[in-house]
């Protein structure tokens, strides 16, 4: 596939991610901050988001596995994930975090566990989508685009 075809594919793929709600306007803001001086800015910020999210998801699983769940601790982790997901435009992840915090307030362990599963699911999807997006960008560069 040549650079032009790959670029068209990238545009279509990106539009789909926005249309399906995986990403929101904040991701555009992130992309606008990338320039010749910071050519890998988006990948770097998103990679940090991946690291942080995986750590938080592990902490959440541990916290909810306790005999006496510390809901303040659970809420603190969800709160952090809400902040970082909103900052890169990972809209679906952010939305699950909002619901999750409500269950924490209610001390509803079933609700929290359900949200944790949803979070893992949404995070896995957005991670795969973003990695595919970055891979397309790399292919365009390699094709001379």
């Amino acid at each position, binding site marked *: 596939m040549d650079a032009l075809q790959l670029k068209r594919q990238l545009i279509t793929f990106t539009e789909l991610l926005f249309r399906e709600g995986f990403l929101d306007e*904040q991701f555009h803001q*992130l992309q606008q901050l990338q320039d010749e001086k910071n050519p890998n800015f988006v990948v770097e910020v998103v990679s940090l988001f991946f690291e*942080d999210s995986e750590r938080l998801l592990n902490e959440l699983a541990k916290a909810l596995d306790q005999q006496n769940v510390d809901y303040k601790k659970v809420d603190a982790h969800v709160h952090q994930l809400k*902040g970082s997901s909103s900052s890169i435009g990972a809209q679906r992840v952010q939305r699950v975090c909002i619901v999750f915090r409500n269950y924490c307030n209610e001390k509803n362990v079933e609700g929290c566990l359900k949200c944790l599963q949803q979070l893992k699911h949404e995070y896995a999807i957005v991670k795969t989508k973003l990695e595919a997006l970055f891979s397309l960008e790399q292919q365009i560069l390699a094709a001379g685009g």
Partner: protein
Amino acid sequence: MEGSKSSIIEKKFNVLIVDDAPGIRMMHNALLKSFGSNVETQVAENGKVAVDLCNSGKYFDIIFIDKHMPIMDGVQATRKLREMGVASVIVGITSCDTDDEVKPFVEAGLNECFEKPLTREKIKFVFEKFHKDG
């Protein structure tokens, strides 16, 4: 990108970014730097680092500070900075979305508080509202 890198805003601003998440510090730093060469930035990974920086004599026109951080959170840091007589504009940037959560942060001494994410529009609002003369 919007505007020219030379200087989108006319006034000089010395800005401190305080957040424990490296990705968010990186993002907020880039957002601020996108306003041009009149904006100088420094980062701190928690409230204690921010307080120590101000204690060492560094002055910041604006401090963008997160609420939840380890070692010293945004509420404690803001309170401490005001007790020290720090006159900087302090803007809370938090994932908190209820009045109950935001109230203690504001009462600690914030000039303004926004829900995350920080955006160019929010930064522009702060620059325009709190610009210094001269």
